[in-house]
């Protein structure tokens, strides 16, 4: 076996979920037999329990487009955020590497390109909540 390209592109959880769904995987393990293998079915089951279940191609593209203006986060961190959709500030802190060190302190007058401010983080969190609504919130909207 020859490895031509070790990394031919990162995939978000949603893309893998969509791909397996198009191959015929369903949440019902018995229904999967024939179209996909049992191990693919297990991956599908895991992804069904993750935020990828609620996402659509359009919502992921929209988030990536709007998150472009936040220069302080790298593309890996954007991937992290799309896969885990944090809804509270501590969860967002967890996805961004060395978050506390990168927040601009008031005493420091030097402005660096990758320094971020607390309100920018809050803005990012609001964007995540807006584009990737939680299932409980969606049910509330439906019942109204």
């Amino acid at each position, binding site marked *: *076996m*020859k490895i031509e390209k*070790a990394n031919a592109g990162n995939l978000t*959880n949603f893309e893998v979920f969509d791909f397996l769904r198009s191959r015929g995987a369903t949440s019902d393990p018995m229904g999967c037999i024939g179209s996909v*293998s049992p191990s*693919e079915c*297990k991956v599908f089951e895991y992804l069904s329990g993750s935020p990828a279940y609620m996402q659509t191609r359009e919502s992921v593209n929209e988030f990536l487009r709007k998150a472009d203006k936040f220069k302080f986060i790298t593309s890996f961190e954007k991937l*992290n955020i799309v896969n885990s959709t944090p809804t509270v500030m501590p969860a967002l*802190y967890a996805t961004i590497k060395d*978050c506390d060190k990168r927040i601009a302190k008031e005493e420091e007058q030097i402005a660096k390109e990758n320094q971020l401010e607390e309100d920018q983080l809050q803005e990012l969190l609001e964007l995540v909540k807006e584009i990737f609504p939680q299932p409980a919130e969606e049910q509330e909207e439906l019942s109204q």
Partner: protein
Amino acid sequence: MFYLSQVEQNLKMPPHLLKPSLLDGELEKGIRGELEKRFLDKVITNLGLCISVYDIQSFEGGFIFPGDDGCATYKVRCRLVMFQPFVGEVIVGKIESCDEFGLQVSLGFFSDIRIPERFMVQPCHRGEDGIWVWQFKVDNEEFQYSLDIDEEIRFRVASVKYPPTPVEQSENSKPFSPMEITGYINGDGLGLVSWW
């Protein structure tokens, strides 16, 4: 967590698989089946665990070499969906078991994820029933949060290792795991999902 990997493989198609594929005109399906048998659910060192065959980009050949039991050999170029979380990625899994060294977390399709004691939320200790407990002190009040089995836990990947295959193994040792992930949970937003 997932990424695509492009590989080239010399695939031997046994005659009993070739006949139905060629007759139906679905050689690609037969090749796909063989690729899945070869790669699916296998760990490739430094690439990760192969989850699925994404697509077949090209295949050529089909020559039968002498001494090959009539197998036609195709040179196939395909893309595989690999599971290999990058260091620093945040993943949610379920606590499968705990022992004196730490926790073991599972994702359903992958279970070799360990969170050793030194990477757990500090301070913590192991209770009498074997369950790890986090002692959280705030303003002289102490809270105890236990890391129970089957709870969802959010952790950050510290490292991904590929230990070499052991030549000999004693009967009582742990089954060999070709891919081991170590995670840590001492940070904001990490630990049980229900805590935050």
